[in-house]
């Protein structure tokens, strides 16, 4: 009767460890923040308690507005090479083009409202109304440009904030 020999192996059981590691990998893969093409990460959104969870809209147009009041378009949304709209006139022209496409795609008559909902992602440091003597367009001017193009619905994005708003 032999008590062990040189041929006997003493290996740790790696299978449960592998199982656990693969589960962790799966977790991180599922939770990974896949960057949405239309969401600009440089925009710092304000916080709001009443911001409701996002409902998936079937037809939408993302407008990312940076702190200078410029509209940043994604490669998907841009018409031509123009991806930064620096003034409300250009926003209006762009939105009118989008409205035309929208109506054509919906097969609607001329006088109907475009079906898309505008999703505004506005930087917290963007001015709502243009300050006197400033070249930064206000958010209100961009909203007016959207309205002039025929759009009616708008959703303002904010970070969901659970607590009481602190004093400034």
């Amino acid at each position, binding site marked *: 009767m032999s008590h062990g020999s040189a041929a006997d192996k003493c290996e740790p059981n790696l299978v449960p460890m592998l199982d656990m590691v693969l589960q962790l990998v799966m977790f991180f893969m599922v939770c990974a923040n896949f960057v949405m093409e239309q969401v600009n990460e440089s925009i710092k959104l304000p916080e709001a308690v009443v*911001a409701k969870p996002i409902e998936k809209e079937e037809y939408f147009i993302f407008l990312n507005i940076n702190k200078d009041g410029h509209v940043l378009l994604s490669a998907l949304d841009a018409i031509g090479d123009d991806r930064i709209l620096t003034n409300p006139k250009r926003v209006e022209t762009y939105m009118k083009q989008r409205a035309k496409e929208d109506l054509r795609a919906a097969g609607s008559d001329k006088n109907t409202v475009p079906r898309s909902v505008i999703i505004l992602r506005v930087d917290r*440091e963007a*001015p*709502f109304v243009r300050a*006197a003597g400033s070249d930064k367009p206000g958010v209100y001017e961009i909203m007016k440009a959207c309205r002039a193009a025929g759009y009616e*619905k708008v959703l303002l994005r*904010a970070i969901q904030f659970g607590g009481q708003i602190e004093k400034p």
Partner: protein
Amino acid sequence: MSGKHKRTETEFVEPDLPITPMLDMSFQLMAFFIFTFRPAPTEGQIAMALPKLDGGQDAIPSISEDKPVAFVVQAEAAPNGTIASMSISEKDAADTKPELLGADFEKYRHALKTRFDAMKGKPAKLTLKIGDGLLQEYVVRLLDIGNQTGFVDIAPIPLDPKKQ
């Protein structure tokens, strides 16, 4: 040669699946996901109506006797884009003297809550007149508190009538 093959008994071979390289790769994958993992803040949304067009058609007047009471909040901006001062008044009220709220959001919240509770379920509208240069952060905060106190119909517009 007899031409007959004697069936030899094959030895049992234990399959050896090398787990170590698989584990190495899994660790590498896990390290990649850990380093690139950035939990994104949860975004929500606030529904708003776009401003009316200049000279556009007004909404059809309601035949209901419950005409909404309109409150107006004026928010002046400081040069750095924060709130310098706020005031609240009731539109078309006999006593048109606005209540001054300073730059205190708690006062603003209290003023709105008192007025909304006094309405006892009657429809109420809140107009936010925003001063030039006020930052979006503060506009959203005003909207947010307005919604929290019960107002549903809230319209932010510029304080300067020429810009409306």
